[in-house]
């Protein structure tokens, strides 16, 4: 079969497995009823997830009830003065990481090393941003670009190994996360790499030199809240990713690769090129997130420290999973997760461990995995029943 221009020859439903398509045909139900069913299923799962977290607060700790936890988190995330600005600042890197995850995930690749890619990106940004001269804004853009390059290199290694030697990218990205953290920790011990000059820091403090004031990401003040403009950039990029994945040939090919690699190959999609490309983009986004964290000001005083990632990479990955890799939904999930993070900062006063935010995040993701899986299985069971009753 000669390679054809995709988009003409194969439609997306055809690229899916044939059985899944027939499952939709045989379903003898009204659209409204099935939509109601889907919404109900999601609601039950969501409720279950929150109930588990609430039960944990009620029964496993004697410090507070779930209602106080709820109010306190809401206070810390949006209601108290200056808090929603902080939430926006935290949401920016989460959103960026999640967007990258979407690109690679749609191409059928499982990149779970965002935390490492983010840290490498931050390190590249810190190295370049404290060393080059030139006007502040230009230096900021260049150093952020270097962050993108750093993250892309880190993910690109995994992508290259995947398509060159067939090494599972799940494991390489995961393992390289630890490598990245150690590498940056090592860099922070050497003056020639990342460590700040001895004046202006405590003797054994392993931190990088802070960014000069003219290289910070500009902040906007609105109704008493201030936030870096990086969140606007991130939202813009979310729209771009949505458009590229949903409305362009490149995006179509990526999705086809993810749905059914064999069909994609037959339709003339270069698996290597698109696969490695998706990994590079994914890592680049994570690297940019690292740079934005460093230059944005919501994560410490504009300098790199050990453990700089602070779980943002994982939060972004989970956000992409909850949103089922839809770029526009991710925006809201990123805000939700950022709110959980900033809100849980207020929990210390109540004595409830702030880790409850992680629990809520985790149960939410698990709950969001359930409905599509149940629906898919049911559709398949019906399809099998339909075919066997025909024969």
């Amino acid at each position, binding site marked *: 079969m000669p390679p054809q221009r995709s988009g003409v020859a194969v439609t997306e439903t055809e690229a899916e*497995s044939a*059985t899944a398509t027939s499952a939709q045909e045989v379903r003898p139900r009204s659209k409204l009823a099935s939509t109601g069913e889907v919404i109900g299923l999601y609601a039950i799962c969501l409720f279950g997830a929150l109930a588990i977290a609430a039960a*944990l607060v009620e029964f*496993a*700790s*004697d*410090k507070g009830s779930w209602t106080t936890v709820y109010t306190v988190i809401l206070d810390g995330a949006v209601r108290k003065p200056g808090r929603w600005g902080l939430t926006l600042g935290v949401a920016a890197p989460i959103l960026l990481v999640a967007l990258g995850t979407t690109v690679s995930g749609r191409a059928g690749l*499982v990149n*779970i090393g965002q935390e490492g890619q983010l840290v490498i990106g931050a390190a590249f940004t810190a190295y370049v941003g404290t060393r080059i001269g030139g006007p502040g804004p230009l230096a900021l853009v260049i150093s952020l670009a270097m962050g993108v390059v750093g993250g892309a290199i880190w993910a690109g290694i995994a992508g290259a*190994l995947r398509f060159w*030697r*067939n*090494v*599972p990218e*799940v*494991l*390489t990205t*995961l*393992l*390289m996360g*630890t*490598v990245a953290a*150690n*590498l940056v*920790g*090592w860099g922070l*011990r050497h003056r020639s790499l990342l460590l700040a000059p001895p004046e202006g820091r405590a003797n054994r403090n392993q931190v990088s030199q802070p960014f000069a004031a003219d290289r910070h990401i500009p902040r906007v003040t609105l109704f008493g809240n201030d936030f870096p403009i990086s969140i606007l950039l991130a939202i813009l990029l979310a729209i771009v990713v949505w458009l590229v994945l949903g409305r362009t040939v490149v995006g179509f090919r990526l999705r086809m690769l993810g749905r059914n690699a064999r069909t994609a190959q037959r339709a003339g999609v270069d698996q290597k090129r698109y696969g490695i490309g998706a990994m590079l983009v994914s890592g680049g986004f994570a690297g940019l997130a690292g740079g934005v964290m460093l230059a944005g000001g919501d994560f410490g005083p504009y300098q790199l420290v050990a453990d700089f990632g602070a779980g943002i990479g*994982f939060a972004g*990955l*989970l956000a992409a*999973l909850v949103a089922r890799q839809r770029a526009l939904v991710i925006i809201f999930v990123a805000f939700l997760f950022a709110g959980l993070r900033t809100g849980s900062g207020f929990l210390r006063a109540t004595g*409830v*461990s*702030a*880790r*409850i*935010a*992680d*629990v809520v*995040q*985790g*149960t939410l*993701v*698990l709950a969001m*995995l*359930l409905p599509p*899986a*149940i629906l*898919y*299985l049911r559709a*398949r069971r019906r399809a*099998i029943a339909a075919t066997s009753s025909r024969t």
Partner: protein
Amino acid sequence: MSNFFSALGDIFTNESLYRNAIIATVVLLFAASGEVVAEKAGTINISLEAMMLAGAYAAAVGQGRAGVWGGLGMAAIAGLVVAGVQANMSHRLSADQFVVGLVLNVLVLGIVGFLVGSNEPASHIVERTKVPVLAEVPLIGPALFDQPWVLYLVYPLVPAIWFLVYRTRWGLEVRAIGEDPNASDVSGLSVNKLRRQTIYLTGMVAGVGGGYFLYARSGRFEDSLIGGRGYIAIAAVIFGGWTLKGTVAGCVAFGLVGSLVLTIPSLGYQAIDPAFLAMAPNVVTIVAMTMFAKRVRQPAALARPFIRGLK
């Protein structure tokens, strides 16, 4: 140069090097010997980390109420609970196994962190038990046979796993579904059920491993106790080329490296930055996977969900 060799001699005749190496190896062995079975059946079980952590926490809580044996039992149950979620979500509902595993790791870390923050379990260390005669062997004797008795559980465990996988009908079926699930399905094996069973086994063994590590290491539970050892155990399985022998070798190698990280600075040598030693297992695994990826044959259906009627 002679300096270098005397340093090497210094390091490798140090008894605590071997003691630490064995302690680190055994926790990997507990986890990896279960993982090898799961991977033979076709699952890359990322939630190993969560199983170990849950086991360690349950052991910390359980020993206060029911002693060390009770703690280990609770550890097995805790590992089994995590395994239940992983197995049923990925091999009953056919959700993506990596996603489920990763989320479980984050979730269990969160839950355990929350519980420890609310009420911290008391610490308890298990005393060393000396095995007569064997413990007198110089250098490695004390490391292998003068340890907390919980460690000795691993000695029968590994042969038992070997017997289970290579000498029983169940083991044959497990290996078959990892190689060709469709053919196995047609032959009447319940592919997903068997896969779930292997994950349950992994969960129990890894949970006990977590409990062991708690008792052998510090006795004090912290949520950073496992600290990525689950991932290293997965790496050991891959490093070992999906054979039990290779996996044991991988665990020993990574355990030794982990122990060197502790021993070299404590002897006053600073030739190698500890950061590089800490990342060594991961780098070695990636290099090994790259070199052997084409030669070592992984289970053919590894990481592919089985849904009847879909290739």
